[in-house]
């Protein structure tokens, strides 16, 4: 029982981080049809900017996080104007966009090494403090992440569901030409998408860094496959789907290590579990968990 509570809690923490990162990727795909393979490395950059500001420069932790999030959002917007806009104008296909994003990802990873140096880093937070809950050990850092990640997800869900910008984004993902006809300002939607996804990516990086304890320049890269699995699992381009997909995969990945299942899957095999789950779901429901097929008339 204690094992189960422990893994459930770990799963929720992992799931909430995956969910936040996956929504960013999903919004960008939905609006821009861009498979943003650079998301993982921007996640890492978010964590490194935060550690640089808070540990090296003694900026208060929360302020450092906010600056890091704004940095990733800012870079995302700059890339929109310098790269993505031009590529879309010249009608670059999904594959070309994907390859360019992969290039961006490699550059960001190298820049992190050049600017912040090799080796692992740590936030200046209490990594050892734990609480006991129904026999499980709940780390304070994990609890903080879970609380703030959940609040972020709630706020994000409301933003996407209710705000004009959220409705505009979903309308644009669904039917870009009709959205424009209906008065949706396409340029504003695209900017909002990069801003929101940049903020989320930076935040997810900080959360992942807090949960891991120490992290290296490959942190986000390692997380990229589960993030994409979450996006596809939930239905690609659907923001709610990405949230759901993130939580489902987080839980499945952690619970798969439970010893009750033939001694449990070794934890290095978690990505394999993620992709097996994805494959199984897609076999049954090819359009993803929240996907649906419009009635043909």
């Amino acid at each position, binding site marked *: 029982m204690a094992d189960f509570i422990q893994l459930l809690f770990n799963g929720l923490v992992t799931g909430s981080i995956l969910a936040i990162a996956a929504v960013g990727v999903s919004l960008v795909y939905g609006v821009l049809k861009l498979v943003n393979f650079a998301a993982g490395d921007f996640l890492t950059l978010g964590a490194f900017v935060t550690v640089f500001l808070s540990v090296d420069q003694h900026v208060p932790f929360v302020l450092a996080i906010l600056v890091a999030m704004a940095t990733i959002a800012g870079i995302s917007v700059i890339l929109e104007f310098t790269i993505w806009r031009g590529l879309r104008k010249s009608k670059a296909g999904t594959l070309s966009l994907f390859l360019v994003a992969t290039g961006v990802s490699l550059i960001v990873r190298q820049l992190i090494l050049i600017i912040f140096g090799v080796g692992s880093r740590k936030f200046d937070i209490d990594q050892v403090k734990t609480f006991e809950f129904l026999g499980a050990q709940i780390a304070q850092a994990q609890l903080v992440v879970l609380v703030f990640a959940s609040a972020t997800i709630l706020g994000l869900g409301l933003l996407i569901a209710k705000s004009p910008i959220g*409705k*505009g984004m979903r*309308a644009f*993902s669904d039917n870009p*030409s*009709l959205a424009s*006809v209906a008065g949706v300002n396409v340029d504003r939607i695209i900017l909002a998408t990069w801003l929101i996804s940049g903020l989320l990516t930076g935040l997810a990086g900080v959360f992942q860094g807090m949960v891991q304890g120490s992290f290296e320049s490959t942190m986000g890269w390692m997380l990229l496959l589960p993030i994409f699995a979450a996006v596809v699992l939930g239905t690609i381009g659907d923001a709610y789907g990405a949230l759901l997909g993130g939580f489902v995969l987080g839980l499945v990945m952690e619970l798969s290590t439970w010893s009750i299942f033939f001694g449990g899957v070794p934890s290095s095999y978690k990505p394999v579990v993620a992709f097996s789950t994805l494959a199984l779901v897609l076999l049954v429901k090819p359009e993803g968990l929240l996907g*649906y097929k419009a*009635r043909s*008339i």
Partner: protein
Amino acid sequence: MINTPLFQFKDVHAGYGDVKILNGVNIEVPSGSIVTIVGPNGAGKSTILKAIYQIAKVTEGEISLMGKNGKVDIRNIKPHKLVDVGIGYVPQIENIFSALTIEENLDVGFIHGQGRNLEIRKTEMFERYPDLAPRRKDRAGSLSGGQRQMLALARALMSYPELLLLDEPSAGLAPALVDQLFEELVSINKSGVTILMVEQNARRALEISTYGYVLDMGRNRHEGEGVKLASDPEIVGIYFGKK
């Protein structure tokens, strides 16, 4: 026509890339009227509407709207701003947001409803289209063909347009629904909305129209009062032989 029309095409040339489709089209839409453009497949009817939204590229001519605040040069207005000057458009295909709920389709239609009340307008639309009301939380993609067309109209009406552009509103509808649709268009028109539409179902559309144009090969061929065009044996023979 004596008065300045609400909406006007003057010698418009337009096309896609290097391909010219419209070769000098003239259309006048008086305020309060229903004007219909008919013509064979590929005549350039949809292109006329797409030219307004810069989906087709206008190379020559003038497109203008006499709005409340004077004449507006449509060629200089970004497509998403046309809602603001009072133009609503229901495209020929993919004219709803199928992944969004019915209610959200209406919300998106209201994005520029400056100073007005969204809930009041939605209630009005659900009263006008009672079939949609019980399904407001369903995804629009689950609607039947007739209901979709109603939703497409409702979405466009959400922004209180002065001029409504319709591309083949009756396409794909069962015969019984076609009658219902044209009645609905007359009712929308009576509520004060000027309509410019393109229709395959030429005779039925012209019968409810104040004025009609026959377009062929990207040029004006004939024009006249709707009822007269609909019963002109020569035009009926050439352009819409099929009943």
